[in-house]
């Protein structure tokens, strides 16, 4: 026995096929709506991920620092007029940083901890000198905070003894090539002759000019911070958990703990606003598509009045008529979501060919995540079903005698 469609889908399909022009128009509307939503969602998700990736590519997710030093009132007479001068912050070590590092590493969600000593210095070569940030690190551990090996243009990202890694801008400014010598001088009078073992280009000219990586012990001695570190850099598994982890760490250590979400509050606000406006656009598109489906079905119910009456006279129940129109709505939504996803894929391909980054690579990948297609299909079918509800109920309520006479 061959497969035969049951009553409601059979009649729904025939009705849709019969109202050819209407069906095409409403399908086009639904397709367009789904395409806009899928395209926009995919585009914004990708662009946001890229922005976040680019920003976080050069900074740790969470940084632990010593508490800032503050002057306190000497005596507690509230009536006395007191002026408290803010104190200048000198370079200090994170107290018992090994313990803090162990505690941070054990915290769920933290994937890497790297101790760093940073302080100001001058890079001197011949008559030229440039102000730089001296970064004392353990190269192996730092790599898990910033993926430096990906940014190397010459040499390797490794520090040892007096071997250092500098940025491409600083190398250019001072005319330095790999294995050349470079002197760093510090405000406290110390200085050291470094040998350049690697040159990086991190994609940010300012950082390319400022960062000078040396070993942890060398930086400690140059900056008068023997055995100490100025901050602990952390990487977390889920970047949007960073703030929660920072808060927990602050509670556990009593130190200053900043997440990227605080240091880049503006970026985060921008991303959130973008998400909100994206949601707003999506809601309106869904509403318009729903109204479109509903209005076409309302017209179709009026046009099919006679057929509804005939079906009722032949014994079709109200529920059967209701199903016929609900299925029409759901079908339009489902087919529209498939066509819309295809259209969105086409748009993504087209726009990724047009829009390119500064380096010529595509601004975004022309790919469609399956979960977006599944989601779009579910939402569109649901919206189709919901918008068919009013017309379908009207059809079901129709009096067969009136319907046949019309």
């Amino acid at each position, binding site marked *: 026995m061959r497969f035969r469609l049951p009553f409601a889908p*059979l009649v729904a399909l025939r009705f849709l096929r019969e109202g050819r022009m209407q069906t095409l128009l409403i399908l086009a509307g639904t397709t367009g709506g789904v395409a806009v939503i899928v395209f926009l969602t995919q585009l914004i998700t990708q662009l946001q991920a890229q922005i976040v990736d680019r920003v976080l590519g050069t900074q740790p997710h969470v940084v632990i620092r010593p508490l800032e030093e503050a002057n306190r009132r000497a005596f507690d007479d509230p009536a006395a007029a007191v002026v408290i001068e803010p104190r200048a912050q000198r370079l200090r070590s994170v107290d018992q940083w090994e313990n803090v590092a162990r505690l941070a590493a054990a915290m769920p969600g933290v994937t890497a901890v790297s101790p760093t000593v940073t302080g100001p210095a001058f890079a001197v070569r011949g008559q030229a000198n440039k102000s730089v940030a001296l970064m004392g690190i353990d190269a192996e551990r730092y790599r898990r905070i910033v993926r430096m090996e990906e940014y190397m243009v010459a040499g390797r990202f490794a520090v040892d003894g007096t071997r250092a890694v500098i940025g491409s801008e600083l190398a250019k400014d001072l005319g330095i090539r790999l294995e050349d010598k470079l002197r760093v001088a510090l405000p406290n009078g110390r200085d050291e002759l470094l040998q350049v073992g690697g040159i990086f280009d991190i994609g940010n000219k300012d950082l390319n000019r400022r960062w000078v990586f040396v070993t942890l012990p060398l930086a400690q001695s140059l900056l008068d911070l023997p055995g100490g570190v100025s901050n602990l850099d952390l990487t977390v598994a889920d970047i949007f958990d960073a703030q929660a982890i920072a808060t927990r760490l602050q509670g556990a250590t009593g130190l200053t703990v900043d997440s990227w979400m605080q240091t880049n509050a503006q970026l985060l606000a921008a991303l959130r606003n973008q998400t909100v406006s994206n949601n707003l656009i999506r809601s309106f598109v869904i509403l318009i598509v729903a109204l479109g489906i509903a209005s076409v079905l309302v017209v179709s119910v009026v046009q099919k009045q006679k057929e509804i009456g005939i079906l*009722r*006279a032949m014994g079709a129940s109200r529920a059967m008529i209701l199903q016929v129109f609900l299925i029409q709505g759901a079908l339009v939504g489902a087919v529209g979501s498939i066509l819309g996803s295809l259209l969105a894929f086409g748009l993504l391909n087209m726009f990724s060919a047009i829009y390119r980054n500064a380096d010529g690579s595509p601004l975004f990948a022309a790919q469609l995540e399956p979960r977006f297609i599944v989601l779009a299909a579910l939402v569109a079918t649901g919206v189709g079903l919901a918008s068919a509800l009013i017309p379908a109920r009207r059809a079901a309520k129709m009096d067969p005698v009136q319907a046949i006479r019309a």
Partner: protein
Amino acid sequence: MNAPVIELVGLTKAYNIGTPVEAEVLHGIDLSLAQGEFAALIGPSGSGKSTLLNIIGLLERPSGGRLSIGGRDTAALPEAEITALRGRSIGFVFQFHHLLPAFSALENVMMPTIIARGAPDDEAEATALQLLDAVGLKAHAHKKPAELSGGQQQRVAIARALALRPRLILADEPTGNLDTHTADDIFALLRAFNQQTGCACLIVTHDPRLAARCDRTIQLVDGSIASAG
């Protein structure tokens, strides 16, 4: 005498009940139709023929009195059962055939069975083909109603009315818009099925020639039965 297929006792129908323009169109109709009876319902326009037919066909509910179908009082039945009873026991033939334009002749004939069983099946198709064969349209089974002539459309409608072997066929001027020759054909077809299957037929007609060929003529004047053969 067989048990009555339909029985009406003191049946009334009024519109706009309780308003100043209340209008009673049927006043206390008493009527019964036995199994196998072939009756004509005649009367001038506006006498309430169509309303009576719609009430007997369970498309409208009476305002008063009693309507029994196959011995079952319909007044107490809920909407869903009325619908099911209508589908199972009554076949309609309308003046303007009222076929579904989106479906082929065969599918139109299958439709009552599809509705009753929820889905089409091979048996329904075989029965529908037999019926189309019986009305002489087997060759046109896969044509849409629009591709058929008026007489052919009405024959499809008759085949459809017979699909579920109903106890009662109600025909509202089935030959009203057909030429005399075709009208005779259609009438003969109804008569033949009536004799073969033993279903009762109630045919509304304006044509005294056709009415004279029925077993019985029921005359309706101003909402009351003037003569019931």
